């Protein structure tokens, strides 16, 4: 059985072109880019190229790119690095729907005496910018707000937020892991100070990430012990990973239009067909301001893990915000912050597409979904009372 992969917000397949590009740098061109000899030096040239490729996707200068090991490292570096650079300021503003790579770090800061404000969201997962504005003050060191939400795909108005925040001399970091490669960015024209990106979300392998640092942004290094990345991130470079990431960014730019036309159309088709064929289902999040590849659908009276396992039998890969899949006993913090009722949160399924998905895969899933939901509802003690 061939898998139907609709879990691209979790990770993506490595593009063939990317794999080809990185392959020589394992066994043949294994030199250290810091070495003086030609053998190592030629690797350094490739890293410079990769830096330029990333910069082109983000619309910034190559010198503003720091390579890291993952999105989580980029987030931690941005947060701790900024706070270390402005030690007299003790307030951090974030949101309740951030990825744990940001939220957990911010909550930990509280134990060190920081005042952390977590902005709430409305039913559609949107922020209240007036609330943000009223929180900005002279004590605020950092505002860290994600560009697009990994669970719902809801996109925040980061440009507007960045304008509001940076005009007061406060640093703005955004976790751009989900947006990069899916929607166009032009950071040289943007006031955003810091942006995190992860390679494996855009068809590069796991183990390479980027932190964009706008020129003039004060940030202290997080990893010390070497001159790599201009002293801003010590440690021998993940050479094949970085080369792969560069190539993946180049490809992402080429496929940007497809992502927002063909992939978006497939997502819309999948979503509207499921809503139509499965009663008591609803979309979570603002459908207007959303990533082109993501849909998060709740099915009342049934539980997400059970849905996933039935999908899995057909080779369909998706994910859920239900308690049972998170390993905790409560459903997703994002859906709870949005006030999605527990009944719906337990039965939420996220489909996230990529350019490798086909119309046939979408049609197949559309055909299977009603029987899966119907089957679980036959088992559910709540259905009779509620709908029949």
């Amino acid at each position, binding site marked *: 059985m061939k898998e139907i992969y609709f879990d691209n917000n979790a990770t993506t397949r490595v593009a063939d072109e990317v794999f080809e590009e990185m392959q020589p740098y394992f066994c043949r061109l294994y030199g250290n880019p810091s070495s003086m000899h030609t053998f190592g030096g030629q690797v350094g040239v490739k890293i410079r190229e990769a830096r330029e490729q990333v910069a082109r996707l983000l619309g910034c200068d190559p010198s503003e790119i720091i390579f890291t090991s993952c999105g989580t490292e980029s987030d931690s570096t941005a947060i701790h690095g900024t706070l270390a650079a402005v030690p007299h300021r003790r307030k951090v503003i974030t949101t*309740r729907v951030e990825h744990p790579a940001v939220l957990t770090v911010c909550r930990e800061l509280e134990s060190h005496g920081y005042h952390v404000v977590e902005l709430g969201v409305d039913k559609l997962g949107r922020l209240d910018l007036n609330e943000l504005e009223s929180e900005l003050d002279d004590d605020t060191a950092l505002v860290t707000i994600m560009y697009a939400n990994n669970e719902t795909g809801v996109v925040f108005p980061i440009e507007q937020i960045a304008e509001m925040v940076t005009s007061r001399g406060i640093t703005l970091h955004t976790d751009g892991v989900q947006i990069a490669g899916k929607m166009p960015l032009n950071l040289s024209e943007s006031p955003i100070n810091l942006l995190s990106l992860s390679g494996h979300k855009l068809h590069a392998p796991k183990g390479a990430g980027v932190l964009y640092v706008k020129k003039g942004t004060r940030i202290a290094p997080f990893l010390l012990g070497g001159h790599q990345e201009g002293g801003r991130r010590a440690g021998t470079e993940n050479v094949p990973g970085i080369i792969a990431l560069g190539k993946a960014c180049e490809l992402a730019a080429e496929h940007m239009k497809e992502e927002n036309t063909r992939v978006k159309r497939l997502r819309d088709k999948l979503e509207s067909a499921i809503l139509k064929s499965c009663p008591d289902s609803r979309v979570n999040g603002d459908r207007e301001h959303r990533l082109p590849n993501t849909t998060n659908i709740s099915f009342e009276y049934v539980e997400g893990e059970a849905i996933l396992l039935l999908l899995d039998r057909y080779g369909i890969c998706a994910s859920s915000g239900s308690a049972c899949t998170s390993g905790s006993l409560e459903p997703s913090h994002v859906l709870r912050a949005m006030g999605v009722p527990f009944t719906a949160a337990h039965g939420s399924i996220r489909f996230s597409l990529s350019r490798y998905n086909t119309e046939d895969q979408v049609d197949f899933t559309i055909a299977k979904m009603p029987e899966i939901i119907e089957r679980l509802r036959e088992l559910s003690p709540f259905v009779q009372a509620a709908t029949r």
Partner: protein
Amino acid sequence: MWEYTEKLKDHFFNPRNVGEVEDADGVGEVGSLACGDALKLTFKLDKNGRIKDAKFKTFGCASAIATSSVLTELIKGKTLDEAMQVTNKDIADYLGGLPEQKMHCSVMGREALEAAVDNYRGGGTTKHELEGRVVCTCFGVTDQEIERVIRENDLTSVEQVTNYCKAGGGCGGCHGEIEKIIEAVQGERVKEQAVTPPRKGKKLTTIQKIQLVQQTINEQVRPALRTHGGNIELVDVEGNKVTVAFRGMCAQCKLAEYTMKDVVEAKLREFVSGDLYVEEDTDSVDEGHEHRG
């Protein structure tokens, strides 16, 4: 991904005895939509008092559905007394084991059975009755239920208790009480594992006292508030007066004065000094903190 046994998968993909028995002699219901799993069990007896037919309806994950299916298979043909001997461990063993975090599914099966038998014998409510005092308010678990899973499954940690009956899996505010119940049941065996609270006793310097107050708030109070979207900030310590401010959800909570202040005070007296008292600073809560409903 959970590691499920082939047997569990079989009972999930091909559940036995789905539905409701007509003219049931006993009906038992446990769980709720909010909790993430729920089970309705119905059975009918033959003229010899043996369970002739048993059916279930379950809302929940794969292991909740599979354990329900197994439960009905296990009790068929048994007298009620025999059926009541079935433990959550029997259900789990039948499936070749359950992931630790899913043990509560097997406990739910046993509870539904008890509720159904009680319903038949007493003819009263079909709901699983809460016996004892509620310890975990997030999931509505009583001290007696916690004691029972500890005894029947020989549990020694809070984490295990959470896996078996969900108690302590929400805000975490009841972890201390669960630890006490474990100690009471298991005695000396677990005493040494208990977490040692921050040092207390000697006279503290002012700086030490402030640090200990801050540490206690960080470790003992904030995590519980956090899960409810609230927060607490230490504003000042003056002699024995500790001033704190509640933020987020807690700031608007009308009960804040009666509940949170008392909780904080109790924790500070336990971990820092018995003379401390807490006052709430309402001035420092700025306007911007209101959350939309």
